[in-house]
């Protein structure tokens, strides 16, 4: 007996479709794979395609095993491990292609198809954007269509037909998907233990600031967060989004001294007006949650805290998108009384750095009586001396502040805030560096602000007697447009901007599309991705569900209902179509009338025979029923339906007095 071959289960056309769908499912992962693996995956698909087209032999077992072992080694070499999210996906990809190369039984085909569904899920680990969802739906339809095809013996089904059926099945499953989305209890934090390397590729604010850090950051077009103001929209000069605050300088980089762990949260006097807004923070590396200077501690979200420099923080990195409603007070007095430790930290400078700056500070101290006057004099210096705001500052030496203030005089915000902070400290004024974002681009369509890494900014805060910490932005003195109009306006003519920030040419079309796309994305984030445990609980409470128990009951009941309805709808296909003929409906009325008189028409009894029997058994009804029967016969069997006859039948039936 001839051994069963693949072609017994899967015809050529279906096999080609299977390869195509697998390619569709794998293609999105390709860019994130190491080059050798991407090449191997493509080659494997191509090889299988050639085997199918040229009727070649499948590779022998020893070859497949060697490839598998080598790939394992390769993945270990590339990632340093073979477990975890990223290497796991890489392994899955290579194994799915190898499975294709050893596919000879029906079971292999099924395994491959179901593997595709699984691979599809892994896309969500990398991206949860709108297009991912769309792509997932398309792929799910394609895989389902394939599943239908491979389960159909004999000739391949027409492509259009299986695609239609596949899409239909996916569409039918959507209500259940939606239900599970809404009602399946959301557990705070990752439910299935998203591997610790999730979000490894994220960028964002870092926990130190060295010259060049922020100008690098703005080169990425990463979306940092979106904000929607509820009532009052603060002007640009108030839109400072507070992020990491640095109080320790080592001569090159600004860092956090770590005193925040030891010092209690400072007192703050919040002054009107209050600004209420909704913020959706994108995942990034770091525990900062960004809030408008400065947030009302009463409105801080669960599991967040206010650090001693008044940043809004989370206990761990923000690796999922989060939606919060916050209230901030642009007018405030922060830390009227400065604790000794804080004062000391914010005055400390590394020894033997920047002697010329220290000398300048001494001179300022001698010339001006009050700290305010020193601050103003310094800002005046920035404004009047030939300082240049640029993305491409020249490199600085060991005494970076000296070099900047007296030689190059070209710098980006981090240079200005760093130099300013150093100078103030040298002049005896407690000062610190604050990083975060400034400004944001308004999306007219959705009435929200989109803040990207291009809006990253650094400024300073000086502590003044009686006023507490006061924000001073030296960049504003050099390049007021940066604050009022944003980076792209301020730097438009410099030729230094990354291409996505440049204007002109066809860019207005792009800008327009970008606006719409941003708006859609924000809606998606707002309604889909930000739907976390808090939002879910809130929604559930509004419809009267108090706890998980209620949620699970609601989920079970609604899921059963939906499945029941879908089942009934499917069942209807197999029952004969309901006869909606008017004559039949009217005749049913007659049957009902006569039934009240105890006369029932037998199912196999024609209308005429029935009328004859009625005439025999109940002569007083005979004529009327006969008349109705005659019209009924006319309608159904002799002449066909006409409105006149239908009316006549209705009248004839009404005439029957039972």
């Amino acid at each position: 007996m001839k051994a069963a071959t693949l072609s017994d289960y899967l015809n050529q056309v279906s096999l080609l479709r299977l390869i195509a769908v697998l390619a569709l499912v794998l293609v999105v992962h390709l860019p994130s794979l190491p080059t050798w693996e991407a090449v191997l995956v493509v080659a494997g698909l191509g090889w299988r395609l050639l085997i199918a087209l040229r009727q070649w032999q499948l590779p022998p077992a020893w070859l497949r095993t060697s490839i598998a072992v080598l790939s394992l080694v390769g993945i270990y070499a590339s990632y340093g491990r073979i477990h975890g999210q990223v290497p796991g996906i890489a392994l899955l990809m290579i194994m799915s292609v190898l499975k294709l190369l050893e596919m000879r039984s029906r079971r292999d085909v099924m395994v491959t198809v179901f593997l595709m569904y699984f691979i599809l899920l892994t896309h969500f680990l990398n991206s949860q954007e709108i297009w991912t969802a769309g792509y997932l739906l398309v792929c799910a339809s394609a895989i389902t269509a394939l599943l239908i095809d491979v389960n159909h013996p004999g000739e391949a089904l027409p492509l259009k037909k299986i695609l239609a059926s596949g899409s239909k099945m996916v569409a039918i499953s959507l209500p259940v998907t939606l239900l599970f989305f809404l009602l399946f209890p959301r557990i705070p934090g990752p439910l299935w233990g998203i591997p610790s390397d999730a979000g490894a590729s994220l960028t964002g604010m870092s926990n130190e600031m060295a010259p060049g850090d922020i100008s690098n950051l703005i080169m990425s077009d990463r979306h940092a967060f979106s904000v929607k103001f509820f009532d009052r929209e603060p002007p640009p000069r108030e839109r400072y989004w507070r992020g990491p605050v640095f109080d320790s300088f080592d001569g090159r980089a600004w860092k956090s001294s770590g005193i925040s762990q030891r010092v209690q949260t400072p007192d703050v006097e919040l002054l009107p007006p209050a600004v209420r807004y909704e913020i959706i923070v994108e995942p990034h590396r770091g525990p900062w949650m960004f809030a408008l200077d400065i947030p009302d501690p009463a409105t801080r979200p669960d599991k967040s805290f206010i650090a001693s420099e008044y940043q809004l923080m989370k206990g761990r990195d923000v690796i999922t998108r989060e939606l919060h409603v916050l209230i901030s007070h642009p007018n405030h007095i922060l830390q009227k009384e400065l604790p000794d430790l804080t004062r000391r930290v914010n005055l400390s400078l590394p020894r033997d750095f920047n002697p010329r700056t220290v000398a300048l500070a001494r001179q300022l101290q001698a010339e001006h009586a009050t700290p305010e006057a020193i601050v103003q004099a310094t800002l005046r210096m920035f404004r009047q001396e030939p300082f240049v705001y640029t993305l491409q500052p020249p490199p600085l030496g060991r005494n970076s502040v000296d070099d900047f203030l007296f030689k190059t005089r070209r710098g980006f915000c981090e240079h200005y805030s760093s130099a300013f902070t150093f100078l103030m400290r040298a002049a005896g004024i407690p000062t610190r560096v604050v990083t975060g974002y400034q400004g944001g681009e308004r999306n007219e369509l959705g009435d929200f602000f989109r803040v990207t890494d291009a809006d990253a900014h650094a400024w300073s805060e000086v502590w003044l007697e009686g006023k507490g910490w006061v924000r001073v932005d030296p960049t504003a003195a050099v390049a007021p447009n940066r604050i009022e109009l944003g980076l792209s306006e301020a730097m438009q003519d410099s030729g230094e901007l990354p291409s996505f920030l440049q204007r002109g040419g066809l860019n207005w079309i792009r800008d327009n599309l970008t606006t719409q796309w941003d708006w859609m994305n924000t809606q998606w984030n707002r309604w889909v991705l930000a739907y976390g445990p808090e939002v879910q609980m809130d929604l559930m409470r509004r419809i009267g569900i108090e706890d998980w128990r209620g949620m699970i009951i609601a989920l079970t009941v609604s899921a059963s209902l939906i499945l029941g309805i879908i089942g009934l709808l499917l069942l209807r296909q197999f029952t004969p179509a309901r006869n909606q003929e008017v004559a039949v409906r009217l005749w049913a009325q007659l049957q009902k009338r006569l039934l009240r008189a105890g006369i029932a028409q037998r199912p196999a009894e024609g209308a005429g025979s029935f009328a004859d029997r009625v005439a025999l058994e109940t002569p007083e009804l005979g004529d009327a029923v006969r008349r109705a029967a005659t019209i009924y016969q006319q309608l159904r069997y002799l002449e066909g339906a006409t409105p006149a006859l239908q009316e006549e039948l209705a009248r004839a039936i009404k005439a029957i007095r039972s």
Partner: protein
Amino acid sequence: MTHAIQPALDALNQIILGKHNQIRLATACLLARGHLLIEDIPGMGKTTLALSLAKVLGLGFQRVQFTSDLLPADIIGVSIYEPQAAGFRFHPGPIFSQLVLADEVNRASPKTQSALLEAMEERQVTAEGETRPLPEPFFVIATQNPANQIGTFPLPESQLDRFLMRISMGYPAAEAEKALLLERERRDLLAEVQPAVSPQQLLELQTQVKAVRVMPALVDYILALVRHTRDHSGLRQGLSPRAALALKRAAQAWALLAGRQGVLPEDVQAVFAAVVNHRLIAASEREGGAPNADDILARVAIP
């Protein structure tokens, strides 16, 4: 139209007493261009029915008594050498008449039976390489004796299918039998019968049968009946599409006889037993398991 056939029906009813339904079915069968199989014991008036149909409808009539030594040529005809013409001349057999009575068709050998049945189906005869059409209308009434089956060749199921209807005469009612005995001999009566319908009118009526309306609702009913037989465990096989067509055609003829321009479910029910009973094959030899036509009619609801 109806009136055209009514005198014929009346005349037939005068000769064959108390058999209104059989006469009507036989006439409907003829109008539907189908052949009729009468199954009954001898002496029940089978021949009389055939003869009177021929007479009343003005058809040329031939009777063939089927015996075991009957040869196909005895029915179809044979070419005989004629010295005067110095050649063979075809002498048409009894099949070349408008109404053929094949008496005791199951007595003849299968070969002869199939010669008859082929002619019935194709309405033409091929003898000695020449195809000769049979007259129009062409109508075969075959009789079968169900009781005395010794030395017979029962018609195979596939050939029974060629008959549109199978009926049996049954004993006459008491009244009718009394009249039969009191009155004149039927045969004498028959000699005096005049055709009530011209061959032209008959052909026209046959054409009209096809024009009788069949609405989708009725087709649904026919299909429901047919499907019921196909799903029935007591039957070896259900009714074929040809049977469904036969049912439709017979019901059309029946409706025409009733003077309707469309077919009612009642028309289908009226012809159902005659059309279907000889086509149903029980799954087992045991009686009782298989439904007969009436069982089926009672079970299937009119849609």
